[in-house]
């Protein structure tokens, strides 16, 4: 169940940016790479090839194609590498989910560990300060918080 919740949260994060319903050259070119070999996204490239691609996209929009249809047309000709980001399906989902999942899982482990360490039972072993008389411990806490207010 926990894993399911974490996965749902991860997918929520990655699903926030959605494709625009009415395509424009700008909205489409953000999802494509330039084919001139410059390795740059289309919207950042100024070469002749990029101009030709923009003209083609403009014509496709004028023909009434949706953004997804335009992207599919490029993928069919150039392969997946023409897309500026991995698709959100199949093995590519690993690319999208793993960063969030690893942060969430490691975060969960950290919370549990810190909780365990700060538990009174384990405090017995955690350092000499715990062996202090409660009166001195209270004084130490006060001084530390005072020190905290005053300096580094």
């Amino acid at each position, binding site marked *: 169940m926990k894993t399911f919740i974490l996965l749902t949260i991860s997918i929520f994060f990655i699903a*926030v940016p959605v494709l625009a319903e009415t395509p424009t050259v700008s909205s489409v070119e953000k999802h494509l790479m330039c084919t001139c070999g410059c390795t740059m996204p289309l919207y950042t490239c100024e070469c002749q090839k990029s101009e030709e691609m923009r003209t083609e996209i403009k014509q496709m929009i004028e023909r009434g194609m949706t953004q997804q249809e335009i992207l599919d047309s490029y993928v069919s000709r150039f392969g997946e590498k023409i897309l500026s980001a*991995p698709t959100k399906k199949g*093995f*590519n989902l690993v690319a999208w989910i793993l*960063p969030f999942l690893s942060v969430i899982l490691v975060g969960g482990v950290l919370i549990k560990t*810190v909780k365990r360490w*700060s538990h009174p039972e384990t405090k017995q072993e*955690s350092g000499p300060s715990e062996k202090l008389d409660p009166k001195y411990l209270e004084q130490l806490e006060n001084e530390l918080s005072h020190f905290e207010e005053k300096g580094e």
Partner: protein
Amino acid sequence: MIEFGEISLSLALVLSLYAVVTSFISLRNSTFEFWWSAKRAVISNFLLLSVSIGILAYSLAIKNYSLKYVAEHVSNGLPTFYAISALWAGQSGSLLLWAWLLSLFTLVVLWQNRNFQFRLIPHVITTLSAILFFFLILLVFITNPFERMAFAVTEGQGLNPLLQNPGMMFHPPTLYLGYVGFSVPFAFAIAALLNRKLDSEWIVLTRRWTLFAWLFLSIGILLGAKWAYVELGWGGYWGWDPVENASLMPWLTGTAFLHSVMIQERRGMLKIWNVSLIVITFLLTIFGTFVTRSGIISSVHSFGASSLGYVFLAFLVLLITVSVYLIFTRREELRSDYHFDSYLSRESSFLFNNLILVGSAFAILWGTLFPVISEAVRGVKITVGPPFFNSVNVPIGIVLILLTGVGPLIAWRKASTHNLVRNFLYPGIGFFLALIILWFIGIRDLYPLLSFSLISFVLTGIVMEFYRGVRARKRVEQNIFRAFINLILKHRRRYGGYIVHIGVMLIFIGITGSSAFKAEVEKTLRNGETINLKNYQLTFLGVDYYKTANAEVLNASFRVKKDNKDLGVITPAKEYHPLQDQTMTEVAILSDYREDLYLILGGVDDDAVYVKAHINPLVAWIWWGGYVLIIGTLIAMWPSKKREATQSPVPKKTFNLKKTATPIGA
């Protein structure tokens, strides 16, 4: 003369290996002669590499085309300062700069520890010299900057026009200062592991080195962003290119390290994590170099595919093996002295800040490597570009802003309810006030709403910290301004850190504003026609054509009005560089604190021009944030004589000269 450069390089190669061996033996055998000799080898290495780099720089300045490197990177019409900057424009020149900086830093470490009160130093020199040895192998055997031309030429191929920009002149050297700077704390960590001396000594000794490296890496990244913004002409400052990512990853892990070492210094915790973090940071600097040189991952910054990549890969594997072995075999000594008292403590908040920073670095590394992984698993080439990195890093970045605010407000060990209420009340008000104001002015998107509100939370918290500090100092100082200045000067590390946080928040304001609220329009215009973008009107006035020493330039002039107020004429341009057969876009930018008007000349056709105009809100805040970050870091790293005299980080008794190495210390 060129022969001297080449011979110096070969001699430095031999001497760096000699320094590795002698410095290592000197501590093992407690032999003075070996240590004395190792020190001389380090000094000689710096002198030899200074000769080499000096000769290459001079050859570039006088355009000595008998050298292949010179012929490939400069041309007759190139101004001398750009010709010298070609030192870091190519593969072998930039590696020579790296090696020279490393030899300089090794010398500085030696000088800083000339009284030799710390047992770690010989092994620090061993590690730094070993890294230098690796770079010199590359320079002598694989990519020699002194390689001659097979035939005589009278004109060079010239410097890439994109690199002919003042920002670009300083961007690579500042990045290298950062990359090479991280070698020093890494070397201290390895020395601490070798010596099994894993208390906080190595951290205290390298605090300024870490800040120095972090500062220059920050400046390098910001200069790169500024250069991309001004020179590349696509309207943005960060393209998530693999090489940009390679500079951001060590910055993120270095930032995590700067925070987590405080926990070890104060509480003797996270020793294994700190050693691992600096090892990871250094490995990422080498990984960045590997990305640039290998051609394995596609990037606009690549020097092209070469065998150098595999040598770097082998070096990376060696570094990982040695580091993992040392950490694993010392795991008992790396156990924490204490444990966390509560998850409501500054230690825990730093721990989670580390998680987010390292998580972000991992996300970037994962995205950078995923095309290679995808090809290996599915046999399908894919691209991982800006949409991926933005989607993944924006939520992580927002959590990071939150933790930046929480960290300084929460008490060490265990926050009491009183501490939480007292410290979080005003920042909390700051957060909700910003949220309400932003909502009422019409901002509804989740990310900018959260980002700006959390920035308000962080900044309110910092202002309150300054207020409380000044109020406390007012008991001994009459003048409020003096109280403010003395507060910073007497607690440089703490308040310098707060100023850095302010700088980072200003950068986040710029990033959020320019990403969330940008507007753009593209249009073909004839003489006298106007385009409107928000409250700007741009009227096309005409085109000028002229030649410079290196290029043919087409200027398009536009009169700009904002709310009908005349702001003058701006001239975006297209430059054609015949020598490189390359066309460049020179954008025109009108900037103020609210927004940048960014005009790109797309193309010229008879009397018509195709232009793209962008409104990039709050971009200037990124550069101002950079200045504040620099000031804050300088304050935090500035040495305090009084403090150092009274609070020497490690008592000199720690290393007993007589017992271990009687004659050492010359």
